[in-house]
């Protein structure tokens, strides 16, 4: 009803269109009301979603294990794969009678799979959750999933440890037998070659087994370190002694090389000549360093006379042996030294094999111990690799409040649809309602806004 004159002023197009749409507020309200009713119905029948969660703790139970492959990412991947396995899902569905409305069990499993969640938190803990329409269902599923996951993991670990232990037992038995065989072989060899490790030919009795080249050096070191004839006051400082020992080590290496080449090459071979020269040079170095260190040349006879006893004689014997080895073998000399060296080499080989077998046996025993420890740990649920840190609880409140979201979306959609309907109606309705309409649609100015004729005779007004 127009009850007052409106001054003619230009109306922005957007405002004009909005005013035209606003005239159809009745239609807007009807559509909005219908939308709200529909939204209420949808909200009413929307199932809430409840989420139950459990936290699983992972412990690295391999004692002393530095296995870099067992990183947290690999563990998470492995656990997730185990959790999401179709076999587990089928088992849980069957135990809890889930998704009875879905006939196809694989489809039901796929549906359930979407609602299972798994996430690694800080590398040692993992979160497992499940979304369901009922709190009890969510809790039961998470409990089942976490329990089966821990059980399966424990079973796998125990089986692995048992299998390892079985294998190690077998290996230990085998290697033990191998050690015995090699010990027997070495003993037999020593019986048949008593001088296999000694350079003496029919010499005097010696207290212990004749040392080989390395043995000779070790014996020398041992004798020296035991203080053969020198008092603690006379010993030089450690750095000097280290230098002396390095020189003697080089000397020993040179002698070893010489020994090796002398077995393979003739005296005229340049490599053998070079090795002899190197050994001689190393010996001279040792002498110089010892003289510089104040240790003096280890002369066998005077020192042995001063120190007295077997100790000096042993050192002297060793020195003579070293000197003999460093001298070139005269041509045409019989091959006794070579045979002795061959025997020594064979002895060394047998001894080395025995030591390797013993080392392997020791390693197997260590691994066997660890495997047994792992199996023991895994069978104890409290200290196994996986443990339930935070069990699943029954959720009290819905997760994310789906109904609220649906309600908000429904209200917004209803508003938008109602506005759209009103706008469309306004666009299709070209009737003039006010001055702006007349001027906008007609294009001519409105001279006056008149109230409608009196209603009593309006029906008869045949204009």
């Amino acid at each position: 009803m127009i009850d007052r004159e409106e001054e003619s002023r230009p109306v922005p197009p957007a405002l004009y269109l909005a005013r035209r749409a606003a005239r159809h507020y009745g239609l807007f309200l009807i559509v909005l009301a219908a939308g709200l009713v529909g939204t209420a119905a949808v909200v009413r029948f929307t199932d809430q979603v409840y989420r139950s969660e459990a936290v699983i703790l992972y412990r690295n139970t391999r004692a002393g294990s530095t296995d870099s492959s067992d990183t947290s990412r690999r563990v998470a991947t492995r656990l997730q794969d185990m959790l999401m396995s179709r076999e587990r899902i089928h088992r849980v569905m069957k135990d809890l009678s889930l998704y009875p409305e879905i006939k196809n069990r694989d489809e039901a499993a796929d549906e359930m799979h979407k609602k299972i969640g798994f996430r690694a938190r800080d590398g040692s803990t993992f979160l497992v959750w499940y979304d369901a329409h009922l709190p009890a269902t969510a809790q039961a599923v998470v409990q089942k999933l976490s329990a089966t996951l821990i059980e399966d993991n424990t079973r796998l670990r125990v089986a692995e440890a048992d299998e390892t232990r079985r294998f190690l037992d077998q290996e230990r038995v085998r290697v033990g037998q191998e050690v015995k065989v090699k010990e027997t072989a070495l003993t037999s060899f020593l019986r048949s070659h008593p001088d296999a490790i000694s350079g003496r030919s029919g010499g005097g009795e010696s207290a212990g087994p004749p040392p080989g080249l390395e043995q000779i050096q070790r014996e020398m070191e041992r004798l020296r370190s035991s203080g053969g004839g020198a008092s603690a006051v006379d010993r030089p400082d450690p750095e000097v002694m280290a230098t002396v020992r390095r020189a003697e080590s080089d000397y020993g290496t040179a002698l070893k090389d010489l020994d090796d080449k002398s077995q393979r090459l003739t005296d005229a071979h340049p490599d053998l000549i070079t090795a002899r020269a190197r050994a001689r040079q190393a010996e001279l170095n040792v002498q110089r360093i010892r003289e510089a260190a104040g240790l003096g040349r280890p002369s066998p006879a005077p020192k042995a006379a001063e120190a007295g006893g077997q100790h000096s004689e042993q050192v002297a014997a060793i020195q003579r042996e070293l000197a003999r080895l460093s001298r070139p073998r005269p041509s045409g000399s019989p091959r006794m030294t070579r045979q002795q060296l061959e025997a020594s080499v064979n002895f060394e080989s047998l001894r080395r094999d025995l030591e390797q077998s013993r080392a392997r046996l020791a390693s197997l025993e260590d691994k066997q111990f660890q495997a047994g420890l792992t199996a023991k740990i895994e069978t104890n649920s409290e200290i196994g690799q996986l443990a339930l840190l935070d069990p699943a609880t029954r959720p009290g409140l819905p997760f994310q409040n789906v109904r609220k979201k649906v309600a908000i979306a429904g209200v917004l959609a209803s508003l938008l649809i109602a506005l759209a309907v009103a706008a469309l109606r306004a666009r299709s309705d070209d009737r003039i309602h006010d001055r702006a309409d007349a001027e906008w649609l007609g294009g001519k100015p409105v001279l006056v806004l008149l109230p409608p004729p009196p209603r009593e005779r309006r029906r008869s007004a045949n204009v």
Partner: protein
Amino acid sequence: MSRPLVPTAELVTVPSRAVVPLFDSGHAGVPARLPDIIVNRHPLPHALHPDLVMLTRPDGPRAARFRALRHRLAERRDPRCILVTSAGAREGKTFVATNLALAIAELHRYRVLLVDGHLRRPELARRFGLERGQHACLLSQLEHHREYPDAPWRVTALGRCDLHLLAIALSTDRSRVLDGPAFALAIERLRQTYDYVIIDGAPVLDGPEVNLIEDSVGALLFAARGGHTSGRQLKTAFEQVSPTDVLGVALLGE
């Protein structure tokens, strides 16, 4: 002797305001007199039509709006012959025409003639309570003036208001077609006597009547009803009467 057009007694001869020199061949320089207007006074009915708000509620808001319209028209070149029309039917043409004429007449300064130009739905006689025989029908006079072009025009004055009415009888055959040239000639002559001629016309889109007589009027005033008149139709009506001057729109509320 021809039967008088108006049987009632009181007839007033209204001299023409404009004396146009007319030289006949025998009397050079002697001016001739135009036909006179014979006014038939008729009292207003006791129960006035409620749409005649200028009479029923002269102090009301509607009457004020019509006075404002009168003022605005005076500002816009003050057209003396206004055809009130609309795009379609039932949009308030008669309401606007009658009350605009009354608003101008109430000034008692001008001679105002209200003419019924809607042949198929004449309304003025009904509005002013004129039965058949109580006024000289416009159509009859148009036919009469075809034979007697110098015959005086007979109009009806209502009560004491200065508004004269030239209506079409209610019983007129609605299948008749308006004689456009005769109507235009009549308007031309009547404009010489009256200061304002307001014509209650037919809808533009309903027929050719408006196009037949638009050239003889000074300007057009469109009536439109809020919530009823289509903007598209209004625009079409404007285009149809182009290039005749359209003063604007008198918009009736919903």
